[in-house]
């Protein structure tokens, strides 16, 4: 949950300085797509907020939902932060 909260915070941080007309610059269809998918994992590059959409790249593009990937399960562990020193 700590990681999830961090992501949500990051998205809010990105959204805050966007101009008020940013959303208007994105087509309604795309906005709807982001809104519909905001509870899921796809599209991979975008993250939707209740208000403004944000994107890992800039500004938006989507539909990775048609991907058919073989299910690959991986185990993750938190990194050792000391390994990041250099």
């Amino acid at each position, binding site marked *: 949950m700590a*990681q999830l909260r961090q992501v949500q915070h990051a998205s809010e941080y990105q959204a805050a300085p966007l101009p008020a007309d940013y959303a208007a610059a994105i087509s309604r269809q795309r906005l709807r797509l982001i809104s519909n998918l905001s509870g899921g994992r796809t599209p*991979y*590059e975008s993250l939707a907020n209740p208000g403004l959409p944000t994107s890992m*790249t*800039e500004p938006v*593009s989507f539909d*990775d939902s048609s*991907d058919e990937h073989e299910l690959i399960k*991986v*185990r*993750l*562990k*938190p*990194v*050792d*932060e*000391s*390994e*990041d*020193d*250099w």
Partner: protein
Amino acid sequence: MRIHLPWLGQGDIFGEVPVIGAELDPAGNVHAYSSPGPAVLLTHDCAMDKPDKATGLPRVERLQFARLREITALSPDRQANLRGAAKKVGPFEALYLDEIPQFGETFMLLTDPYYLPARYFDLTLLAHGDHPEAESQSAIYTTPRRHDTRIGRIDAEQLDLLRQKMLAHWTRFDLDQS
């Protein structure tokens, strides 16, 4: 470094593309700049090979890059640390790339990625099913028709490490291989 494939792939090394960054002037104001230089393609293969349903062309809009940096730009201590960690996930932000022809001993940082419009490369999808590294006989891949200045691609081990570093740097998670 390996020979690059006919199609684009994550880890391709471009000898000269626009390198975009930001710097501070003496007054503390930020200035964006663009200058030609070497860079490594960060965008994942799967993100590049999807067709637009209407046009049949690649639908990717932006390609992400990280500039290639000379290791001599680092302090001697950092150079030594990076060489010593050449096969380790940490440090997460830096990937040691060893000797690259034309550019010497190099590395790249995940803390300075930037993007170029995909249209700069005039991308198309081409069949490469007869290539020995194609996934299948019917494989089609995103291929540049313009500004293709690639000189190679990073080694397979470096590409694996790059992906692990991306995971660690942006999510602070690492693969648990125990």
